[in-house]
C-alpha cells in the first residue's frame, strides 16, 4: 500500500472520529455506571430498539460468558426495554431519539462510547440478536480467549455472521422472553459462502447463507455482508467504518491468514429470523432506517409475504462450536 493511500485512510479514520465526536450530543446518559468499570473488564457495546423480549437472554448469555459491563444505546424504544436496562446493575444506558441511519446505523454512537470507555479494554460489539461463539466457549470464559489473544499480540478477532433459522414458517414457533432463541432458530447453511478481498480496507467481504439463497437469488451482489470483527482490544484511535464489518486502522481487518494457515476465529449466531421478524421487517420498512435504502428489508417483505421456509434438506442443525469448526465456519487456529 502506497503512502498516499495510507494517508487517505488516516484522514478517513479521523473523519469518522470527528463524526463520532459530533454525534456524542445525540446521546443522553440515562444510567451511567461506567465508573464501576475496572481496568481489565471486558465490555460489550450495543444499540437496540424495542428488543425488550430479547434482552433478558442476551444479557444472561454474555454475562455467563464473562462480559463485565454492558454499554447500550437505546434508540427511542417504547416497549419498556429502556426501563428494563436501567434496572440492570451492570448496564449503562444512553438514550437517543435521533436517526439511526444518520448515525451511520449506530456506528457513530458506539464509536463515541468506545472512544470514551473502551480504551484499553477488550470490547465486544454485537446486536441483541447476535451471539458470539468462539473456540472452547463451552469450557472457557471469554477472558481465556482475550488473555490468549493478548499473549499472542492479536488485537482483533473475527466472527462470521451465521444466519440461523427455524424449520418451517418463521412465525410458527413464538419466542418467549428469556428463552434461548437458538432453540427455535437452530438451523443454518453450512457451505454456501462467497468471499472476496476488499483491497482498500484489507478486510474480507463475505456473502451467502440463507439470505442470499432465498432473498437474493437473482441479485447476489446485493446480499448482506456477513464478515464481522466484533471483538477488539480497543484503542481510542480506532474506529469502526461500517457496522462491525471493518475497522480502521486497516491492520485490524487482517483477521485471516493469507499463507494457507488458519487464524483462530469464531461465529456470530444471528437469530434474526424469529417470529418477531415479520413485524420488525414491516416496521423497519416504514422507518427506512436501514442500509442501502432498506433494500434488504424490501426483499424480505416481498418474500415473507409468501411465508417461505428457509429450511432445506441440506440445512444443518446447530450443536456446538466443534461442529462449526469441523464444517469450516470457524477455526481454533493454534489455540488448543
Amino acid at each position, binding site marked *: 500500500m502506497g503512502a498516499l493511500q495510507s494517508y487517505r485512510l488516516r484522514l478517513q479514520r479521523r473523519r469518522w472520529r470527528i463524526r463520532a465526536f459530533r454525534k456524542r450530543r445525540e446521546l443522553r446518559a440515562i444510567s451511567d455506571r461506567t465508573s464501576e468499570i475496572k481496568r481489565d473488564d471486558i465490555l460489550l457495546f450495543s444499540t437496540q430498539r424495542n428488543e425488550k423480549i430479547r434482552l433478558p437472554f442476551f444479557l444472561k448469555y454474555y454475562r455467563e460468558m464473562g462480559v463485565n459491563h454492558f454499554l447500550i444505546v437505546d434508540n427511542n424504544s417504547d416497549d419498556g426495554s429502556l426501563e428494563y436496562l436501567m434496572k440492570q446493575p451492570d448496564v449503562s444506558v444512553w438514550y437517543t431519539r435521533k436517526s439511526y441511519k444518520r448515525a451511520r446505523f449506530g456506528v457513530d454512537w458506539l464509536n463515541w462510547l468506545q472512544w470514551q470507555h473502551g480504551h484499553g479494554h477488550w470490547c465486544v460489539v454485537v446486536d441483541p440478536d447476535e451471539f458470539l461463539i468462539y473456540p472452547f466457549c463451552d469450557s472457557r470464559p471469554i477472558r481465556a480467549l482475550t488473555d490468549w489473544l493478548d499473549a499472542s499480540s492479536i488485537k482483533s478477532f473475527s466472527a462470521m455472521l451465521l444466519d440461523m433459522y427455524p424449520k418451517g414458517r418463521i412465525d410458527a414457533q413464538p419466542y418467549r422472553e428469556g428463552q434461548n432463541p437458538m432453540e427455535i432458530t437452530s438451523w443454518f447453511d453450512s457451505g454456501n459462502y462467497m468471499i472476496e478481498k476488499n483491497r482498500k480496507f484489507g478486510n474480507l467481504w463475505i456473502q451467502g447463507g440463507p439470505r442470499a439463497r432465498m432473498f437474493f437469488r437473482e441479485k447476489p451482489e446485493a446480499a448482506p455482508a456477513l464478515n464481522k470483527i466484533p471483538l477488539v482490544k480497543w484503542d481510542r484511535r480506532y474506529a469502526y467504518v461500517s457496522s462491525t464489518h471493518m475497522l480502521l486502522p486497516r491492520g485490524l481487518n487482517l*483477521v485471516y491468514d493469507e499463507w494457507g494457515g488458519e487464524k483462530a*476465529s469464531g461465529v456470530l449466531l444471528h437469530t434474526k429470523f424469529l417470529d418477531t421478524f415479520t413485524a420488525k421487517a414491516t416496521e423497519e420498512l416504514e422507518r427506512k432506517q436501514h442500509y442501502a435504502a432498506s433494500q434488504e428489508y424490501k426483499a424480505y417483505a416481498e418474500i415473507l409475504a409468501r411465508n417461505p421456509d428457509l429450511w432445506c434438506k441440506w440445512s444443518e442443525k446447530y450443536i456446538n462450536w466443534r461442529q462449526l469448526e469441523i464444517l469450516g465456519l470457524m477455526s481454533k487456529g493454534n489455540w488448543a
Partner: protein
Amino acid sequence: MNGPEHQRHWGTVGIVMLVHTALDRAEQVARHWHAAGCPVVIHCDRTTPTADYRAFRKALSDLPDIQFATRHRCEWGTWGIVAATQEASELMLAQFPNVRHVYLASGSCLPLRPVQELIDYLADRPRTDFIESATTSDVPWTVGGLDEERFTLRFPFSWRKNRKLFDRYVAIQRAVRFRRRVPNGIVPHMGSQWWCLTRQTLSAILQDPERATYDRYFRRVWIPDESYFQTLARQYSTKIESRSLTLSKFDFQGKPHIFYDDHLQLLRRSDCFVARKIWAHAELLYESFLEGKHGALKRTEPNPGKIDRIFAKAVERRTRGRPGLYMHSRFPNEGWENGTTSSKYSVFQGFSDLFEDFEDWLAKATGAQVHGHLFAPERVEFAGGQSVINGALCDSAEIRDYNPKAFLTSLTWNTRGEWQCFQFGPKDNQELNWIVAGDPNAQISVISGAWAVPLFKSNRNFAEIRKDAAELQKIENEHLNVLRAPQSKARIRIWTMADFIESPMEPLQTIIDEIGHKTLRRLTEAPKMTDLTGFGQFLQNLKNQGMHPHLMGDFPVVHDPVGIQPKPRKPYLVQ
C-alpha cells in the same frame, strides 16, 4: 505431613520460582512446594508493581523456608532472566545446605503429581541433571530464522519493543559478516528454560572462575535463558538427561501453549511432574492438582505423548490449515492454498453429447456423485435435478456466476470424501478454466468437437447452427489451449471425437479406474452412443458454408463411421 514416609529426603529439592504476574497463584503454588518440604526461593520481576510485591511477600511471611531474591528486570529474550536465575540459585545453595537438586519453575507452573514423587524420583537419581540441551544444528526449534546466529551476533535491542532496530541491527551485522567469538571454545547448546540441576553442577557453573567471561558473552546472546545453563551444564555435568521435567509446549511463534480447565484429564494422564503454563483463572486445575487427592501412585515415567499431538496439530492448523477451505480466518493468497480444492473431482467434456445415458452410466460405474452441467447458463444442474445440494449450495446461476471459484471450492469442501463428477462444455461459464486446469485434484477428460453433435441433432436453421458452431469451436479451442499450457496440473486427457469413437472403451476404462471408487473391475456395459448417421455429411455442410470444424478430427465425408452404425450397442463382455 509428619508421617515418617514424608520425612524421606526432606528438603533435598529446592525450588527456584520466577514470577511476574498472577501473584496469588504463585503464592498458592509456593505454599504447595513448601508443604512438601521443599525450600523455595522466589524471584519477582522488577516491573511488577511494588505494592503487589510487598503484599505478596507479606502473604508468604509465615513460611520459614521461603526466601526472596534481589529483583531484576526480566524482559523476554534478554539477560535479565538469567541474572535472576543466577541470583536466586546462589541464594538457594547458600541458604539451604540440604538441597541436592534445584528445580527451576515459574509462577505459572503447576505440579501435576504429588511433590513427594518428584523428590523420590530425584533421590533415585542423585547425580543426574535434567536439562534439555542440544546443539543448534540438531534441532529445528528456533523461530524467526535465528539459530546459530543467536550466538554469533550481538543483540542489544529489545525484540519486543524495538523490533525494527532489532531486525535492522541483525541485517547490518549479517551484511558486514560480523561474528562474535565464542569464549573458551565452548559449544553453544539450547533447550527448554526449565531445568533441574544438581548442587554440584549448578555450583560449578555459578562459581566458575571464568564466569565473568561467560556472563559477558551471554549478556548479548539472543534468548540467553534458553542457552546459558544449557551450554555450561555440558562443561561440568557428569550425567545429563537432555529433557525437561517440566511439560512445556511452544507454538509456532515460540510462545508457550496455555493449559485450561478442559485439559484436566490430559494433564492427569500425562504423568508429568510439572506443567506450564497454566492459565491463572483455571480454577479447576489449581483445585485438582494442589488440593485434590491423587489416589493411586503410579510412579511411571512422564508420558506427554497425547498432549504433544494435540499441540502439534494446533500448530499445523495455524500454519498449514485445511486444504481447500476458504473462510473468514483462512483466505490464502493465490498459490498458497495448499490445495485449491479439498477433494478430487472429474470434469467430462463432450461425453454427455456423444453418449445418450452417460450420466446414469457413470454414476453406476463409479458410485461417484454425477452432476450435469454445473456451469450451465440457465441453472446449476445438480445430480438428480436437486435445487439445493450439500452445504445448502443452491442452483441459482446468478449466485454461481457471482463467484464461480467460491461455488466450486464450496462444492468440493461440502462433499469432501465423495468424488464429484460434472459435465462441462463450451456453452458453460468458462471463467474457471485456468483454476481447474491448475488444480491437481481435477481430472479433466475432453472429447473435442463433440459439442457439434447436439447441433447436428437440432432442428434449427442452418445459418444459426453455423454461427453457433463457429462460436463453440472458438471457445473450446481456447479452453484446449489452457489445458495444454505448461501451468496445468490437473490430470488431463484430450481426444478428438474421431479418435474417441474408434475405440471408446479403453479411455473410459482408464478414467473410471482413476476414480476408483469401486473395486477394480472391467467395465461390462458401455454407455449408449448416440446415432451418428449423417454426422460426416453435417460437418461437410459446415465446411461448405465456410466454417471449418477441426476439433473433432477427421470424419469420413460420405461414409459413416465404421463399426458404429450397424451394431450400436455391442455389449462389452471381457473377463
